[in-house]
């Protein structure tokens, strides 16, 4: 049967949505990243995610266009263990009519994480009282470490909060990239295996956002500086730190 779009429903393209699936613990959970900058959508429009496999569907409220974060856990109670999950992302009119304003259907998982902790691939988290700061970075082990002052760490819960992530994630990325470009003496960026240096892991991580093959060992100081600014901005566009802070403020 022919499908006629009478409602001006917009299509969210594949490069504007990505799904990260975390399979290291059961039940699995997922993160959604949306880039809706090209759309003129009501900021209060609801974001809904449906995850499907065969005849089983799980549904998640994922906040609003302005604050696209889930209201609760994104744990797949029914679909953990299922292969080839299908995601459907809907932007729904906030007027209560249920009208779909935009959607991405048939979205596949962009990246799956099976290791014990996603961020542990890139960052180490530690606690200390050695400095009179809320947090600071250290680069003297196998991974860059975010060191949280014991007085505020709340057993790591603070580092997990939207407030901490929103306020500090971009700064952490900037510090890591700055260290990578100007302090680190790492030169071999061809180690593409999972066991490679943290510098290579970070270059691959940043390439997800800026699409750029960059070799600090061969770059001028000027181009390093520009690359850092561009990379942090593009990371932030996906990570949406401002919306995270807004969400944290609203939830008290």
């Amino acid at each position, binding site marked *: *049967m022919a*499908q006629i*779009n*009478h*409602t001006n*429903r917009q299509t969210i393209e594949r490069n504007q949505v990505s799904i990260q699936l975390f399979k290291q613990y*059961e*039940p699995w959970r997922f993160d959604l990243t949306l880039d809706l900058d090209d759309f003129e959508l009501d900021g209060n429009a*609801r974001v*809904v995610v*449906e995850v*499907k496999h*065969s*005849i*089983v*569907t799980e*549904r998640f409220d994922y906040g609003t266009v302005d604050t696209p974060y889930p209201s609760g856990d994104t744990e797949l109670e*029914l679909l*953990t*263990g*299922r*292969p080839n999950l299908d995601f459907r992302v*809907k932007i*729904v009119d906030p007027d209560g*009519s*249920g*009208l*779909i304003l935009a959607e991405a259907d048939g979205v596949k998982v962009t990246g799956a994480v099976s290791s014990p902790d996603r961020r542990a691939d890139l960052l180490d988290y530690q606690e200390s009282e050695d400095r009179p700061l809320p947090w600071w970075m250290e680069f003297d082990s196998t991974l860059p470490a975010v060191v949280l002052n014991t007085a505020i760490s709340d057993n790591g819960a603070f580092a997990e909060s939207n407030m901490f992530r929103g306020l500090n994630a971009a700064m952490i990325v900037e510090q890591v990239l700055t260290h990578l470009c100007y302090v680190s003496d790492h030169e071999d960026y061809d180690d593409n295996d999972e066991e490679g240096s943290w510098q290579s892991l970070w270059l691959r991580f940043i390439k997800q956002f800026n699409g750029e093959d960059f070799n600090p060992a061969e770059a001028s100081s000027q181009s390093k500086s520009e690359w850092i600014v561009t990379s942090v901005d593009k990371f932030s566009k996906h990570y949406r730190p401002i919306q995270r802070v807004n969400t944290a403020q609203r939830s008290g």
Partner: protein
Amino acid sequence: MLLKRFNEYGLELFSNYITSLGSSDSPDPPPRGILTRPDTTHSIRPSVDVDLTSLDNRLDAAQKITALLAPLPDPVKSELEVDTGFWSWLSLYYFESVCPPNRGRRAPGKLERHVIDGKGRGKYRHLLASPYLIYKQIRPAYQIGMAVLNGPVDMPGEAVEQLTGRNDLIGNRAVVEAYTELYYDRSTETYKPGARGNGRGSCRRFGKVLLQLDRTFDLGSMPASKIKDLMPSEFDRYR
């Protein structure tokens, strides 16, 4: 008997048996021996005892399989739910319910009713996986799904297949509830007259119309009553 799952060889033997039934006037008895043979099965850990009982209808099948799997840890359960060898083993175990003899013959229908393909597709066609997965989604309020949990295990019928054949819809509780409210008569515990036919507003039309509405509206956020309100006038006789 301990609950098991077929390995490749067990699957092959069971599939061959199903295929042989279609052309035989005097079929061989079900090869129940392969349910326990070490060369045709894998064990399930922790072990679970299963007692042979008949499955009275789709709801009964769903409830009995749910109870059977209840002692298993969630990861094991999740693995079995997508395991072709498990569902096929269960199909042979309950063969008298899923393919009962009729005047000496057995009519198994398509293979996928008993053996899900290797990629796990077509679970809604499997006579045991389908009611189990539907029940799992809507329990404890399983009454809202009686239109698709009703009927004999071996013959789900048109009304069941019209909705379970549409993956985009069967996973939506409110859609399942609206379907039941439209076509299932709780007082007689069967379908309303004409529901299973080809006419306007019938089960066949429901899926087609709902799929169009699903592209326009977020049906998952609506109660069954609002979904019914969206249906065009051809469905009025069932409201």
